[in-house]
């Protein structure tokens, strides 16, 4: 009974969690369309080489969009989360309410969050249209080339900052209060306490949060899908992969899979050295 249960669970995990990751690589070497009854051919590396050819519009802009998105989201999300965690780590009523509030977008989910911000930034009667109108600024916001990307970045941060905040709160609460008391007794100033005690001992939480933000920003595109569907300069590699597979009339799943395999490799190439550096930083700071 026990072994049967274990086997069943592991089979489900392998079949629906691991097999797709392998399948993605296999599909990326084919011209698979997803339509039943259509023959599938081995294309070798041509899906990969065509990404870099001029016939593939949207690939170079997608690389740029991805990098801008990842850097801005990682920085913004972590700085804001640290600020929030510092104020919301307490056990008081306001702190608890604040924690609930920053976590709310995660519960609401990307579709509702996306629609909330679309309503607020709608270009006809939205409050932001009125607000920016006061300064003589008129824009289609999510439908404007120079506005869409910054707004998508802000909404992505809004959506996910709650989780990073909770991780930082966990890290802050794990720091022994006796350290602060001892430092205060020795007359160490607040800023010095922050620099000498809080930052070093928070290093493990920084590692977790930076890695989560980097990997999340590289690979997720569901919020972008709701907000702009990758239009107006917001087509990251993840969004491009989805759009060539399901968004166009071509149904080019093979090419989409190749883009997502490349995205996965880029994520690894960026994330693994970062993880190594952050772990080394932890050891240096904590000793």
């Amino acid at each position, binding site marked *: *009974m026990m072994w049967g249960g274990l086997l069943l*669970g592991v089979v489900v995990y392998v079949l*629906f969690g691991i097999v797709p990751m392998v*399948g993605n690589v296999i599909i990326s070497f084919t011209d698979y369309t997803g339509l039943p009854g259509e023959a599938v051919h081995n294309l070798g590396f041509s899906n990969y080489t065509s990404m870099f050819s001029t016939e593939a519009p949207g690939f170079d802009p997608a690389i740029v969009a991805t990098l801008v998105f990842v850097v801005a989201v990682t920085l913004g999300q972590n700085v804001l989360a640290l600020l929030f965690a510092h104020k919301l780590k307490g056990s008081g009523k*306001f702190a608890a309410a604040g924690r609930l509030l920053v976590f709310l977008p995660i519960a609401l989910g990307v579709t509702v969050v996306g629609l909330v911000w679309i*309503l607020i930034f709608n270009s006809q009667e939205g409050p932001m249209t009125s607000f920016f109108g006061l300064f003589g600024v008129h824009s289609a916001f999510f439908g404007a080339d120079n506005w869409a990307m910054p707004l998508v970045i802000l909404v992505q941060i809004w959506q996910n900052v709650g989780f990073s905040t909770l991780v930082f*709160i966990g890290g802050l609460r794990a720091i022994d209060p006796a350290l602060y008391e001892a430092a205060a007794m020795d007359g160490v100033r*607040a800023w010095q306490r922050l620099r000498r005690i809080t930052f070093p001992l928070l290093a493990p939480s920084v590692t977790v949060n930076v890695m989560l933000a980097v990997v999340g920003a590289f690979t997720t595109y569901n919020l972008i899908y709701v907000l702009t569907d990758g239009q107006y300069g917001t087509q990251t590699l993840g969004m491009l992969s*989805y759009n060539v597979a399901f968004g166009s009339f071509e149904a080019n799943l093979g090419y989409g899979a190749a883009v997502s395999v490349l995205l996965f490799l880029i994520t690894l190439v960026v994330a693994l050295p970062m993880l190594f550096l952050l772990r080394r930083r932890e050891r240096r700071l904590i000793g």
Partner: protein
Amino acid sequence: MRRPRLVSGISIGVLITLLFLLPVLYVVMMAFESPTHFLASPMTPGSPDVSNFGNAWNSADLGPELLNTVLYSVVAAALAVALGLLIAFPIARRLLRGHSLLYTFLFVGLFLPLSIIPVYAEARMLDLFNNRIGYIILHIEQPGLPGLPLAVILLTASIATVPHELDEAAWMEGASYLSYLRRVVVPLTRPALLIAFLYAMLGVWNDIIGPVVLLADPSLAPVTKGIYSFYGSNESQFTLLAAAVVIVSLPVVLLFIASQRQINRASLVGGIKG
């Protein structure tokens, strides 16, 4: 010394309120506006008008879609947690060789990127495309929606706190494995089970790419897909859309407030992980 600190504390509080409460409240206000008043003055509330809710409910099929969502997310999350328990127990009790290797293998599952293309291909091949049972099976575990591996990770830690003596006592009494799990392990690991269940459920509940790709029939659509296509066909009916958004969010917000203690506990999990 004390004053600037108080000021910065208050200003962060104001910032959080402005950033997180105001947008939500604004959409709620919008939902209670009559369309004509909203067009005339979008910034100020008019006399409350509830007709948007009825109109949204009737024209967007929200009822059947909410039922689909509840069915998909509750069943898929329950299965994920049940299977997670079946995997976690032998690992936590170190009953097999390579238990730590198996644990690592499942841990990797937390970091798999969202990749819908191969999931779609699998759905086509295994006949799980465009049907309820298939959709549920594909949501027990999916790259990017790690309900099952998270359940294993949380439950392994939790089962380790259940005393071994209880296992032995049950063995002696001749209790079956499943009834032992149900009568002893489940009650003692309830907080971890609940967090794993809530997390898995929220993932399925809020999924938007999955229903767009894996379901074609509108009658199978969960509420995320329903409200997204409702937005596509009513782009400038802002008050109607706002009402639909409020209706759709209400169950999640209520569940969220009801389970806030568990969410606070989840922040401790974050601390351990860090």
